[in-house]
């Protein structure tokens, strides 16, 4: 009894410490982003939004943000579509070399990012497509599709194996069954996967740095700022990136973990 209690408390403290390690630097970054002093020192200076003002006044930042948003939205859409198709083909069919097919799909996250980035760069310059926005989109789609696949596949596992057959049995063609049964069933996972892919793409630096050329994304720009000098603008941009990613991840989590608690009383149509 005592031992169990002790263990419980130990685990609680352990988790607390882990969160502390992860979030303290980020918290500091956010705190310093509102600090009037140029260098991150204690005691803090006055509260100020000057770094945010500087950032917002910088057209380069706006350009990078726009690129990042376009890339993450497009990459997440493509990755989710690819992820859904592969998850469904794995769920529904069995065929020869299916093991190899799945291994190939799940491969990208296992390759070190830097190697993948170099390979992408080499390939894109070979076909004369480096430095384009869409080349970052392609690269990020490849990188994030496995995550989408994994999330959607988990959801399909929860689907009654007769659910699709039940739809056919009631007069739905295969396409109708897909549209009216499989997709609605997977909707929480699809939204969740899209958010997660967008978050990964929005944060991703290595591939974007190699492939982006002049179309800098936000993480690439941050790196360029910090290589020059210590600039508190980084704290401001970093806070913005952190909040964006966290929002996407939280939304993904909400969609993935809540069951269909839908009070549909009174709903019509």
């Amino acid at each position, binding site marked *: 009894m005592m031992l169990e209690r002790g263990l419980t408390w130990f685990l609680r403290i352990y988790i607390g410490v882990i969160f502390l390690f992860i979030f303290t630097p980020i918290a500091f970054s956010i705190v310093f982003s509102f600090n009037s002093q140029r260098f991150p020192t204690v005691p803090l200076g006055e509260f100020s939004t000057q770094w945010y003002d500087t950032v917002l006044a910088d057209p380069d930042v706006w350009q990078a943000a726009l690129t990042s948003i376009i890339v993450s939205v497009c990459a997440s859409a493509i990755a989710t579509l690819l992820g859904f198709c592969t998850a469904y083909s794995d769920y529904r069919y069995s065929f020869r070399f299916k093991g190899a097919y799945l291994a190939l799909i799940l491969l990208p996250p296992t390759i070190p990012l830097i190697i993948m980035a170099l390979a992408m760069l080499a390939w894109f310059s070979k076909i004369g497509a480096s430095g384009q926005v869409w080349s970052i989109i392609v690269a990020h789609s490849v990188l994030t599709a496995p995550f989408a696949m994994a999330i959607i596949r988990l959801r399909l596992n929860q689907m*009654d*194996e*007769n*659910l699709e*057959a*039940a*739809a*056919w*049995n*009631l*007069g*739905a*063609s*295969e396409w*109708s*069954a897909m549209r*009216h*049964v499989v997709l*609605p*069933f997977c*909707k929480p996972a699809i939204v969740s996967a899209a958010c997660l892919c967008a978050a990964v793409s929005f944060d991703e630096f290595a591939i974007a740095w190699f492939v982006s050329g002049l179309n800098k994304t936000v993480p690439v720009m941050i790196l360029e700022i910090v290589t020059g000098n210590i600039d508190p603008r980084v704290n401001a941009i970093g806070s913005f990136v952190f909040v964006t990613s966290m929002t996407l991840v939280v939304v993904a989590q909400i969609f993935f973990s809540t*069951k*269909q608690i*839908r*009070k*549909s*009383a*009174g*709903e019509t*149509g």
Partner: protein
Amino acid sequence: MIDQLLVFDKVVKRFGDFTAVKEMNLSIGKGEFVAIMGPSGCGKTTTLRMLAGLEQPTRGEIRLDGRVMNDVRPHERDTPMVWQSLALFPFLTARKNVEFGLRMRGMDATKRRDKALLWLDRLGMSEFAERDISTLSGGQKQRVALARSLVTEPPILLLDEPLSALDAHLVIRMQSVLTNLQRELGITFVYVTHSQSEAFAMADRVVIMSQGEVAQVGEPKDIYRAPANRFVAEFVGRNNIISGKVKSQSKGKVVIDAPSGTFSVAATKSAVPKTGDDATFVISADLVKLSVTKPKSENMIPATLISEEFIGSVVTLFLESADGQEFKVQVQERELATLDLKSTKTFYLSWPASSAHLLTGA
């Protein structure tokens, strides 16, 4: 003879090397309630899935109302099914589940809504129409599943062990819901189950399957009293099965020499064994008389009590004869009170020749 709605003509279904259904011949009439019963893996569910178009027969023909159905796609048939898992759409309300079939047929929204509500009402579910599926109880889900299948007014309804997930008391209630519905609608029900009580309670005819073959087709009471072969006799209820050789036969009676004694059995028209042939007969446990004093009867055997099984008003006693043959005897619980089970060493089992049934198949 009723009109044939459904015909299985030498239907074979193979999965690789495994033959799930072997040369099946079966006709089912319009408005008939047929139960297909058998142990798991006997091919009953495969048969039902072939009817729904979810499996294609390897050979043979399935005809529905004269039309060959072999290559008709599932969604082009009007053979709705009630699934064992129910397979209700969890993201839709009860009403929208019921509407699904109508929606796929392109019926407009208000019409299909009215029709869905009508069917939910018919099954006593109107107050739950707008509820989420996950908030309904097992019995309520069952009714939604039934309404969903019947809303398109099909000529036939397929049911795949629909009551297996329900509590015992709900099963009894749903059985009467199903039989009443079937009678009112006058459509054909094909009901797959492994439960003898469900099949016998509801069906006009029962098909017993074993290892992909039809072992017997008949009305419940015929199957119960006159099993066609050993498999059916063992599968259905509490039968005592005794094998031996034919010693003699005369005046409609066959005398069989078995290790546990000599018994006389009423001959049937279909089974006329010759002297010296192997023969097997069954005597149903509820037709065996148990007595303490030696009775005068054409079939009598002494036995000792091994164990008893109490299931309510009826008690099953397990006894053993001198040669080790096990006998099951069913006795009314109140009748048992008059017997002294503890101190009696030997009981006498007896039955008239007319109660025993000679098997045609081995």
